[in-house]
């Protein structure tokens, strides 16, 4: 049984997290604009809201840190050692 979820994942109404983060990112961007700032991006860093430089396009897309997040021998996510991590489990760098 094969199912394509593809566009289903981006369709419909936002959940609570995307409403919360969307509103907060928008307000942070507006405040930055009022302060006359430029070249910055609303972001979540170490689990906290912050303004960071817009990423260098030469970097391309960010990728999952397989070494810390994925067990390549057992073909599954890592479940241990999450204490102290930010809410989305990975730090930006």
């Amino acid at each position, binding site marked *: 049984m094969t199912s394509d979820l593809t566009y289903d*994942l981006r369709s419909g109404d936002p959940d609570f997290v995307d409403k919360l983060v969307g509103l907060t990112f928008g307000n942070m*961007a507006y405040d*930055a604009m009022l302060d006359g700032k430029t*070249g910055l991006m609303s972001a979540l860093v170490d689990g906290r809201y912050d303004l960071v430089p817009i990423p260098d396009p030469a970097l391309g897309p960010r990728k999952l840190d397989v070494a810390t997040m994925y067990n390549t021998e057992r073909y599954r996510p890592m479940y241990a050692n999450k204490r102290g991590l930010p809410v989305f489990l990975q730090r930006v760098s």
Partner: protein
Amino acid sequence: MAKKRIGILTGGGDVPGLNSVIKTVTYRSSEDNIEVMGLRRGWEALTHVNLDDAESRRRYLMPLDRENTRTIDRRGGTVLHSSRTNPAKMQKLPEHLAGKDFPLAKNRKGVPGNALDLSKQVMANLSTLGIEHLIAIGGDDTLGYAAKLSELGVKVIAIPKTMDNDVHNTEYCIGFSTAITRASDAIQRQRTTVASHERIGIFRVFGRDAGFTALYTAYTTSIRSVCSSRRSAQTQATMRWLCSAREPSGRAIKCASTARRTHMAIARRRALPTPLPRRSSSALERKR
């Protein structure tokens, strides 16, 4: 004295949550007596708009106020529409710019390629429209051009959105949570059918080659996953191995995802045969 005017645009694929950003920026601006110009269809608004043509202005420009944004946050998508246009990588000139001279875009090594760089046109349109500050909402490609514009002296603030969660410098992009929720719900629903028919269920999901969508779906649904960023022999072998696995009851949920070159396979833990095939060990890998 003329009102300050800012612009806002959404580029790339749509995600749920964009309208919340557009609404809050508009509402805050109305309290500060600042005008908000919605730029429709992403960067295309600033490359394709013909400011001398009323129809073109209607197609690409949408003044935003409290009235026309009051209820937009109740819906997903983006009321400004979107496109994947990158003004620094234009393959073809808009009709009204035919014959005009634009420089060739340079690749990452600084070598000119075949595409055209319309940044000059973008900056001219921003100036004519009186847009003093721009808020760009998008993924790595949309924001990559925002970074370029900022280097050219345009005041830009960026907001990351992508269901792939793959923008650098932030741990979260708008749209990621809803995408994982949708994938988890779909897998959970299909468990009953897979079990009833004692079949293998295979899912395809987006995720580009970043791997976040696949892994976080597996993590939150407590199922096994296989991720690979390439259509490699290893991935193919892994997929074959997963598809050969079944639970003692004769059923298994397999979830394979392909977007561009990304592959993901998810199977219920009990569905996997033992011993597991072993790959090169890593000191960082831990058994649960």
